[in-house]
């Protein structure tokens, strides 16, 4: 599914540059659920952003579903993001003037799907996250957990190959966090490949594999016994 080799990334800071990723090698197979851990500044979010084509690597190879991701034009990157990737952000990143249904339908709009079909599809995904009755509410009328579920429904709407979650529970309390993780585990059970960036051990332990980053390199990469979120709710 995903193959990364010798990936480097630096950010210019004033006259010097900050070397954030110093040669990352990572293989992820179909159906995996991987937690990327590390303290802040370890480069975990940068890695996720590069995988999500939201950011570009300076050097190294990145192959997604047998497709080399390199020197993409903005247009092409947009198409790939739409086709391959679903994003879940810490701060939900819903469009505040669109209701839940419209937010979920947005990636389908960019796929060029007809309006009616789009809405049916979006409603189906909202139903999957249990928010059918909230379809016509604006983000500000929903709780944090509900908003994140809308975001998950949106990430799923385009039927992506890879789901990328950046601290998906970072803005939520423990109970809600576990509810969200339960959803994500269900999605993985159905075969979706998922990458989660987190700095919380309990969240990481709900994945099947933990990759630890420190100072831009992978310190540890191990498979773990998955803790089911449901037991903890």
């Amino acid at each position, binding site marked *: 599914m995903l193959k990364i080799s010798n990936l480097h990334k630096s950010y210019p800071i004033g006259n010097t540059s900050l070397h954030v990723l110093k040669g990352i090698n990572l293989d992820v197979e179909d159906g995996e659920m991987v937690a990327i851990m590390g303290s802040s500044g370890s480069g975990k979010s940068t890695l996720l952003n590069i995988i999500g084509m*939201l950011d570009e690597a300076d050097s190294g190879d990145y192959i997604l579903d047998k497709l080399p991701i390199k020197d993409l034009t903005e*247009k092409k990157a*947009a198409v790939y993001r739409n086709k391959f990737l679903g994003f879940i952000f*810490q701060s939900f990143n819903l*469009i505040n*003037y669109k209701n839940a249904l419209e937010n979920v339908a947005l990636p389908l709009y*960019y796929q060029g799907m007809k*309006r009616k079909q789009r809405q049916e599809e979006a409603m189906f995904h909202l139903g999957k996250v249990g928010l059918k009755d909230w379809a016509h509410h604006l983000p500000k009328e929903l709780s944090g957990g509900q908003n994140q579920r809308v975001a998950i429904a949106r990430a799923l709407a385009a039927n992506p190959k890879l789901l990328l979650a950046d601290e998906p529970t970072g803005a939520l309390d423990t109970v809600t966090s576990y509810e969200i993780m339960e959803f994500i585990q269900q999605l993985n059970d159905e075969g979706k490949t998922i990458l989660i960036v987190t700095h919380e051990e309990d969240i990481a332990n709900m994945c099947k594999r933990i990759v630890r980053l420190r100072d831009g390199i992978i310190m540890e990469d191990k498979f773990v016994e998955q803790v089911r979120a449901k037991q903890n709710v």
Partner: protein
Amino acid sequence: MFDTDLWREIFQSINKNRTRSLLSGFTVAFAILLFTILFGIANGLNNTFDEAFGTDASNSIIIFPGRTTKAHKGLQVGRRIQFRNPDHDYIKEEFGEKVQFITSKVMKNVTASFRGEQNNYEVRAVNPDYMFIENNKIKEGRYINQNDIDKKAKVIVIGKVVDEDLFLKTTALGKQINLSGISYKVVGVFTDDEGLNEENVIYMPLTTAQLVYGKNDEIDFMHLTYDPEMNYDEALSFGNLLTKKLKERFSVARSDQRAIRVRNMAAGKKAISQMTFGLGVIILVIGFGTLIAGIVGISNIMIFIVKERTKEIGIRKALGASPKSIVSIILIESVIITTIAGYFGLLIGTGILKLVGPSLKEYFIKDPSVSTSLVIGATITLILAGTLAGYFPAKNASQIKPIVALRND
């Protein structure tokens, strides 16, 4: 452009972000409103100006006789110059084609009465050409013609005001009217764009007045227009030549300024055209000033809007929006707002001009108005400026990496 989903997106964005839409709309509407009102007022001033300088033929020359102030060729100082019919013919012969219309004039004040109504008026005894020089318009009947001159007919043409004064219950045309004891037939009624004072006048054939008032062939003064094809310099030199010839004819010293006075409107015409030009420049400055203010306003708002929408742009890009769709959604939205707001500004502006316009007349502003095409042009300029001003930030926003746009701040 005709993607209904795109339009739905845009209208939703306008509708759901009302404060933003209203604010940017307000700026444009206000700019167009100011533009309309200022331009209207400037046009009103221009109208007043046009009216003040009247509709008399501007290529005209008036020749007044006076008394000599210098002895010349053995003739005394203080000699009175008197024009006579041959002088009129002399000018016609001497200058030929260069003279467009010419009339001699005899003035007289009379008391006119008709069936008990009575009033005092000025009589101007003239040649038929006078109608063209004064730019009179015949309302009823006819003007004085050559036949009247030849026959010394006792006919008159009266101004609209005279008609209204004396002929309360009946029409004036064909009626006999008494002017200081002598009866004349009314053959026409005229109007004059210059207003009531010029319509409070009675015209009579020159020869009739000369006969009736015992003037023989004497003339009070002469009024002529020159070939309108002449330019300013030609007109001036024509006036100078005319003066010189007349002075020679009456044996007046060349340096004598009082004996024969020739008032050439060409000199004034130049001043008028300069003033009109000046006014035009002021109007242009006002117009461009307001437009530039509007352009600056809409540009600032576009930059602000793009800044405000950075996060939304980031989200859309993460979900697969192409840079082109980002740019078009921002620009089309701004064009729609600008167009609607510009239209409202135009409506309100012309509405205000219509409402307060009439009461501004005493401030030298007459019929303040703007042509619709001008305001539409101004609105289109603003739309283009807004599009241009919005394009670059929108383009930049569409190029930024989604991660930058999405970064929590």
